[in-house]
């Protein structure tokens, strides 16, 4: 590695993308830049702000629930707060999170391209993201108050309530459009801009998962777009579409809503799975086990995941055949997910595991995602679902998958690519402490929800019976531990962007993919010469030794 860093200095005459001066400088140089790396950072900053807003609402919600009855807010405020928490976290953090931040930053690097296929559309999607986000936030301040429908906007309440539902609807619509543009861009990028020699099966695995995600973004998002638009039109002009008073069918709305919103959870989780597949080989020093299985399981998840939406609606009335088919398909999704988990574990087996922070987050991902995934299969069983539907069991499952999965995957990616992004290293010790706070806090916060949900605690309720109080109390305490961990992590990273230890070596982790073969931080157009690819993305020399030893024994 010492040799490598010496070579950088000798040819390091091109400024990095952080110092690069284009047509515009200063702030304009960022917000008008079409450089995928800068857009990735723009997303990171804006996304973090919305994430913190979402966290704040979550913490307030937990605080209210620490004791039965009124604690810090009235019921109406509580309804608005869980709606905002959902809308912000889903549409502004988890859906765009990994693709928009890390997809933007690393996808072109991973495939050996200078940028994405449509750099200007890429920038436009960021603007739409910001506009959508601001619309969601502005609604809080306007008279009428923020929406109180839950993030699902179920009809007929969403056409009857007097709160600012319109803002939330338009916010989600615009954010959907932004997501479509990102997806469209990535599909084209992967098809058109892979470096010469990089065949489909030489692509790094996170490219596979970003690619599958991008297809789901393109194919599923328009449905939610039109559906929310119709709700808006119904509210605004009184056109009869879903409202039962005008002959409409609210269950049809639910179907259309979930046709997008279920695949959306795969938009959220797939890129995180890609990150896991990327990080595990690096820190286990082993070639990924079952490359093709992981690659195809991403496609399989995208495919099956698009056909299971009605499992959100087992209790609203559906034919027996419908219930049977959706229940079966739901359980089938578990297969490709399990294939991934087994392959990851097999990669770890006999690896030389280094428990660096990204790896810790990845291991936590596997643990938490397995709990979330298996409880998901439970809910796919019709009889169990009737019992746990609309209880905090669902909330726990969802958070185990979305926060324990995607959230921890996001943090893993952040800690993994941080040195490449900023050319600085965070305080590794503090990062590990923060990780343990996050991990412990997370479980203390969400695990009691499984238990009380099973015992019958409904979700979204402002008040509850006294027998649930111990669980709520533990859960709220967990939220404090979690927030402490978050604050530590954010402080550490924020501080390190400016003052962290400088990293100049190209490959601080010993990764094998292309982004570790270019300067840290990368130059404006990533590669001076587009690399030619003639080998698989993960090739660890250690691997052969390990296998040989295995054969001998």
């Amino acid at each position, binding site marked *: 590695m010492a040799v490598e860093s010496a070579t950088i200095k000798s040819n390091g005459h091109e400024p990095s993308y952080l110092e690069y001066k284009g047509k515009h400088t200063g702030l304009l140089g960022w917000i008008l830049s079409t450089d995928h790396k800068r857009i990735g950072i723009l997303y990171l900053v804006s996304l973090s702000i919305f994430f913190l807003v979402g966290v704040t609402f979550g913490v307030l919600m937990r605080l209210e629930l620490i004791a039965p009855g009124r604690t810090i807010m009235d019921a109406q405020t509580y309804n608005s707060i869980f709606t905002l928490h959902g809308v912000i976290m889903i549409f502004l953090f988890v859906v765009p999170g990994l693709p928009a931040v890390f997809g933007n930053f690393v996808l072109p690097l991973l495939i050996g391209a200078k940028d994405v*296929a449509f750099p200007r559309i890429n920038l436009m999607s960021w603007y739409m993201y910001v506009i959508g986000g601001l619309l969601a936030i502005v609604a809080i301040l306007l008279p009428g108050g923020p929406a109180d429908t839950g993030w699902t906007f179920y009809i007929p309440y969403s056409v009857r309530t007097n709160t600012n539902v319109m803002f939330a609807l338009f916010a989600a619509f615009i954010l959907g459009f932004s997501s479509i543009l990102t997806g469209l861009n990535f599909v084209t990028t992967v*098809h058109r801009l892979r470096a010469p020699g990089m065949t489909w099966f030489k692509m790094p695995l996170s490219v596979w998962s970003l690619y599958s995600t991008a297809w789901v973004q393109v194919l599923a998002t*328009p449905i939610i777009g039109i559906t929310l638009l119709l709700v808006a039109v119904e509210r605004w002009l009184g*056109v009869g579409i879903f409202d039962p008073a005008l002959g409409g069918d609210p269950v049809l709305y639910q179907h*259309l809503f979930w046709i997008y919103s279920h695949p959306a959870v795969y938009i959220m989780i797939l890129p995180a799975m890609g990150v896991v597949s990327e990080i595990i080989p690096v820190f286990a020093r082993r070639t990924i086990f079952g490359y093709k299985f992981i690659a195809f399981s991403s496609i399989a998840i995208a495919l099956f995941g698009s056909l299971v939406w009605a499992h959100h609606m087992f209790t609203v009335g559906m034919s027996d055949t419908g219930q049977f088919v959706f229940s079966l398909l739901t359980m089938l999704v578990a297969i490709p997910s399990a294939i991934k988990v087994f392959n990851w574990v097999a990669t770890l087996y006999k690896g030389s595991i280094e428990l660096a922070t990204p790896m810790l987050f990845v291991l936590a991902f596997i643990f938490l995602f397995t709990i979330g995934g298996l409880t998901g299969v439970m809910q796919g069983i019709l009889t169990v679902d009737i019992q746990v539907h609309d209880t905090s069991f669902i909330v726990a499952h969802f958070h185990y998958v979305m926060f324990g999965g995607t959230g921890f995957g996001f943090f893993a990616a952040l800690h993994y690519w941080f040195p490449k992004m900023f050319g600085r290293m965070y305080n590794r010790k503090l990062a590990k402490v923060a990780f343990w706070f996050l991990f412990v806090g997370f479980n203390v916060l969400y695990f009691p929800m499984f238990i009380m949900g099973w015992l019958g605690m409904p979700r979204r309720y402002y008040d509850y019976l006294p027998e649930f109080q111990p669980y709520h109390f533990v859960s709220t305490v967990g939220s404090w531990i979690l927030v402490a961990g978050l604050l530590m992590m954010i402080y550490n990273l924020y501080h390190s962007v400016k003052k962290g230890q400088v990293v100049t070596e190209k490959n601080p982790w010993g990764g094998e993919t292309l982004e570790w073969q270019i300067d840290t931080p990368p130059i404006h157009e990533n590669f001076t010469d587009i690399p030619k690819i003639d080998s698989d993305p993960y090739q660890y020399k250690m691997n052969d030794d390990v296998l040989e030893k295995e054969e001998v024994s």
Partner: protein
Amino acid sequence: MSSTEHTAETHVHRDDIGSRMGMWLFLFTELILFGGMFLIYSVYRFEYPEAFHLAAKELNTIMGAFNTAVLLTSSMTMALSIVAIQRNQKILSIWLQMITIFLALFFLVNKYFEWTAKFHHGIYPGSEELLSKGSGEILFFGLYYVMTGLHGIHVIVGMVLIGVMTRMTRKDIITKDSYVRLENAGLYWHLVDIIWIFLFPLFYLIT
């Protein structure tokens, strides 16, 4: 695409296949967007077949058919404008694009008269006249306004888009060797056309 005049080796990224691919992906999303509405239409049609039958009688089939012809012709002129630029006939291409825009405008004017005629009969969302009818008819006209309205918005977007293309052709940005933008605008315009071809029978011809 990317502005790279400042780096040492200036490269202009041009990928016509990529651009076309992006456009097709975008058109997929448009199809799915309208697909959601067609789905809603078919569900309600199934639920209220008679009401839909009766309500469709109120629409003016002749006007609808006329508009279909107008839009189909505009699709042809659009296709011809691309052929013209491929043959390096710039002026002809500009004329054909302008005729396309004119036909689109004609379509919208027609649509305007159709809508206002309905308004005069008291049939518009939330009107007393409409609310006094059965659920099926309320839904039919709700869908009629929303679907043709959304289609109309697409027509307007298409006009603006083709207008920009005309300007680009005039300024020689779109030329014999580089016409992928015009082609993409053409694809968009054909999509607008195709959606109308489905809307027309679903609303006007089911009587």
